[in-house]
């Protein structure tokens, strides 16, 4: 069915696809999914640093997007809006899936271990280092340096002070530099 949808909608512009999705056309949605899944997954993986979690979160993004897309009014680019939706869902996902002890003592999850990051296919050198960063430093770095959010926006998204966002970014940068220079 996905193949059919791809054939049927290859020629349609993204705007036309979105219009069809808004009217409830699931084939158009499959085509829209094909257009954006790699980018959404990339962002989820960078934020969550865990392949399985990134896959789950990506699915959650596309399930929620089906219901949210009616609220997309075209005032920004669809990809920009989708990135914002994805970032928020990935952050919520991380909060929901912290275990009891991590919630009680606000434990920060460490990043991916070095070998797992090296084993990840399709990642560039920076990505492989970013996945090793501790949770908060990683999220701030991805949102600020890669996604282009301002620290004020990140502070709201991650429920932290603006100063904390800046210091986590500095921490991330220092760790990345240290790892890069010792490679």
């Amino acid at each position, binding site marked *: 069915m996905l193949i059919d949808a791809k054939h049927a909608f290859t020629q349609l512009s993204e705007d036309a696809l979105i219009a069809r999705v808004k009217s409830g056309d699931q084939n158009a949605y499959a085509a829209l999914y094909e257009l954006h*899944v790699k980018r959404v997954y990339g962002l989820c993986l960078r934020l969550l640093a865990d*392949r399985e979690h990134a896959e789950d979160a*990506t699915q959650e993004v596309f*399930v929620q997007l089906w219901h949210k897309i009616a609220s997309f009014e075209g005032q920004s680019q669809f990809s920009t809006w989708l990135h914002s939706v994805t970032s928020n869902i990935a952050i919520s996902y991380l909060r929901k899936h912290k275990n009891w002890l991590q919630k009680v*003592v606000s434990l920060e999850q460490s990043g991916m271990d070095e070998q797992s990051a090296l084993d990840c296919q*399709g990642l*560039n050198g*920076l990505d492989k280092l970013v996945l090793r960063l501790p949770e908060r430093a990683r999220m701030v770095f991805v949102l600020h340096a*890669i996604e282009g959010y301002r620290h004020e926006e990140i502070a709201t998204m991650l429920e932290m002070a603006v100063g904390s966002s800046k210091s986590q970014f500095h921490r991330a940068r220092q760790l990345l*530099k240290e790892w890069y220079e010792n490679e």
Partner: protein
Amino acid sequence: MSKPDFDTFLAESINNTDSDITPQKDLWPGIEKALAQVPKPQTKSVTWPKLAGVAACSVVALLSVQLLFSGSEPATSVVMSDYFTQQKQTLLVQYQNQPALTDNWQQQLTELENAEEAIKQALNNEPENPALLKMLAQVYQQQLDLINKVHAPKWQQI
């Protein structure tokens, strides 16, 4: 050839970053299945927030017990453990012939017991750490609340 300095590496990597990464498995079937289901109203679990509230109130009392015993020989955590183990066993015996209202309460209890073990291990290194003692008290209280809650008569749930 020497590698570029970090700032150059960072700037070039960010500028040239291909945002696309291909997932290892096909995610569409799961999404399609989820979309096919009739949307249900969000049914948020109200059990845990309530339990947390009850537990939070009880912690004050529990800490009082802790302070009461803090001058005695056995470690505070040991005193607490003895006290709550007795309470827990009493409840389990009391409810043993009564059906539980949920199927997964034993799984929830196991999770709490795992948390209890983790805290106890941490307490081995710092026996009088007040934050750990508070957490232990909380987790004990949550176990008691859970047992009570799932065995309470339905009219009490209204």
